[in-house]
């Protein structure tokens, strides 16, 4: 080892192609003071790489034109454009569609998936209670529950367990969705029930507990006035 900065200063080499000559860097630990460090040649970037670059760039633009949904924050996979998303989105919520899975979870066990009713509950399909133009009586039934005899489609029913009060467990949105579903399924075609309508009934019956201790009877419900 001969650390001699003065001597090595003379050996500072120009930087450029062909400068990598001289000492084989892989031979000795006692490297000379002016051991060659890598340098770079001056060959040109090949033209095909530039052309490929431009071509890929062009492809990228086309791809973004076709697959970026116009950079609209509302467009998600798998849709292609904001126009399409808007067309599919009618603005009004499809309450009945939202109600279908809820009906399956909460109501179908007694009223049956096809709304035909059974040993535990009356039919919903074709029921005048369900399809009445004003839903304010209908809304009260799931809200507070119902007990005692009830006439549906001209037939008298009495169920020992009655209808369970659901007002504490189901939100206005959920109740509106379920009621809209039963009003628009199995041949029923009444207008949907909005969450606002459910909220109004809740307000009107605010002093009535929703824990199953103050269920309606059919006679009581028939006294509730209907809008014409």
């Amino acid at each position: 080892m001969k650390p001699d900065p003065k001597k090595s200063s003379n050996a500072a080499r120009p930087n450029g192609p062909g400068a990598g000559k001289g000492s084989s860097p892989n031979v000795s630990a006692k490297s000379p003071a002016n051991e060659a460090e890598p340098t770079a040649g001056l060959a040109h970037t090949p033209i095909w790489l530039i052309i490929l670059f431009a071509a890929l760039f062009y492809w990228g633009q086309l791809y973004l034109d076709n697959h970026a949904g116009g950079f609209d924050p509302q467009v998600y996979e798998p849709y292609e454009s904001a126009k399409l998303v808007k067309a599919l989105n009618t603005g009004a919520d499809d309450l009945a569609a939202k109600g279908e899975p809820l009906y399956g979870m909460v109501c179908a066990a007694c009223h049956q998936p096809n709304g035909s009713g059974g040993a535990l509950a009356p039919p919903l399909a074709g029921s005048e209670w369900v399809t009445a133009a004003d839903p304010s009586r209908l809304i009260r039934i799931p809200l507070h529950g119902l007990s005692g005899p009830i006439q549906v489609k001209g037939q008298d029913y009495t169920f020992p367990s009655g209808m369970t009060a659901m007002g504490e467990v189901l939100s206005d949105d959920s109740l509106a969705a379920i009621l809209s579903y039963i009003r628009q399924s199995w041949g029923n075609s009444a207008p949907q029930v909005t969450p606002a309508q459910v909220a109004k009934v809740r307000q009107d019956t605010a002093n009535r507990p929703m824990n199953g201790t103050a269920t309606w009877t059919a006679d009581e419900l028939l006294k509730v006035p209907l809008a014409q």
Partner: protein
Amino acid sequence: MPAETGSSTACSASPPVPVNEIDRSCRTPVVFLLACSQAWLVIGLLFGVISSIKLHGPGFLSGSEWLAYGRIYPAAQNALAYGFAAQALLGVGLWILARLGRVTLQGAGIPIVGGIFWNLSVALGLLGILAGHNTAYDWLEMPRYASGPLFFSYLLIAICAIMTFKLRRECALYVSQWYLLAALLWFPWIYSTAQLLLIIFPVRGVLQAVVNGWFVQNLFDIWLGSLGLAAIFYFLPKTLDRPLHSRYLALFGFWALLFFGSWGGMYAGAPVPKWLGSLSIVFKVMTLIPLLAVGLNLYRTMAGKWSAVKTDAALGFVALGALCYLLVGVVGILSVLRTVSERTLFTLFTPGMTNLYLFGFVALTVAGAMYYIVPRLLEAEWPSGGTQTFHFWTSVAGIALVTLPLLFGGLTQGAKLNDPQAPFISVVRSIIPFLGLSTLGGTLLLIGNAALLGRISKAMLATCCGSCCPGLLSASQKPRALASGGKV
């Protein structure tokens, strides 16, 4: 980056420092970083093998919650990324900056202090992960009490690197210096941003996945990628003893990588606005350009000297590391295309690519650099000869086994997962053979790298004892002048 910088730096005024002095200034910090990184590689592989065994033998070590898969797998990932890859490449980078700048490593003890705290932070972070304090963000699993110290230890090391660059005595810049400087500045930006937006003031909802994806993309493609490329661009021409083919091609590739490499990270079909995924795809595909520029430059540099890889260990490792870089780049580009990603997403394909990147590109490049640097810094010959061949072939076989089965397994797994008729448990059963092969590969890598770790420790001990009390060593053990890089 301009070819020649102004005369404001010290480079034009002072004479170059002799190589011996440069190497002596690098000895303690660089050897420390490299030895510690090799130890983390062994630890990370050990954790990785344990977690890999758990995938096909769920009863293995199931008694301890510390070794549960959800803890040991991220611990392995973090040991490999921060303990091994980052630390090793930073160590190599410090030496390259000093050598290319023809100046001693600046900051004296600061990089050592930084290195010590970096290792303590990684250890603390891994303990935190094993104790169940995982942050649950990919590649950012270390808890806050470890990521903070990690960041500040990084700054210590980076400041020394930038000082060394600033005070260089050789004005002309070489390709490796561009990549190193970019990487040194890139990490504080991405790491602090990710920590701020994910851990300290977390953004809401799915935006977290966007930030995380951006971070991972930058961590690998830009930061580790630039550090690794700096080493490849240095060692390939250095060991071949000829100049790099083209500075212009390198410049083109450099800027193209920095620009296009930093935008990806989201995948098609993520629950975010569609343009995010599409933009990621376009930018990832555009990284084909810097990939070709790097590949072409290295290919032309190697042209006609291919046989040199057989005689020079450092060159052999680095050249294979470069090949893995190009391979994983191409596979990565293919994997983001919508038709491919709908099949490979959430399958073994992703860890397969990560393995190719970490064990192929990073570990082989680092190994080549170590075979070149460590004997020179220790001024000693490697104590034994056979380890190198052993390390090389266990690496090649191990990388093939931790990569190919996972890539192919991922493709079949994805095809079956997308088939609604296929029962889930049959899909799980069908990937067991691939996982088994990957465990075997991990074990091979573990054995090979443990051998290299032993070899480095032995060389360090020999130099250390040789300099303190030479009488202790017998003539045969005495450090001798390095004869050659050895044969692969």
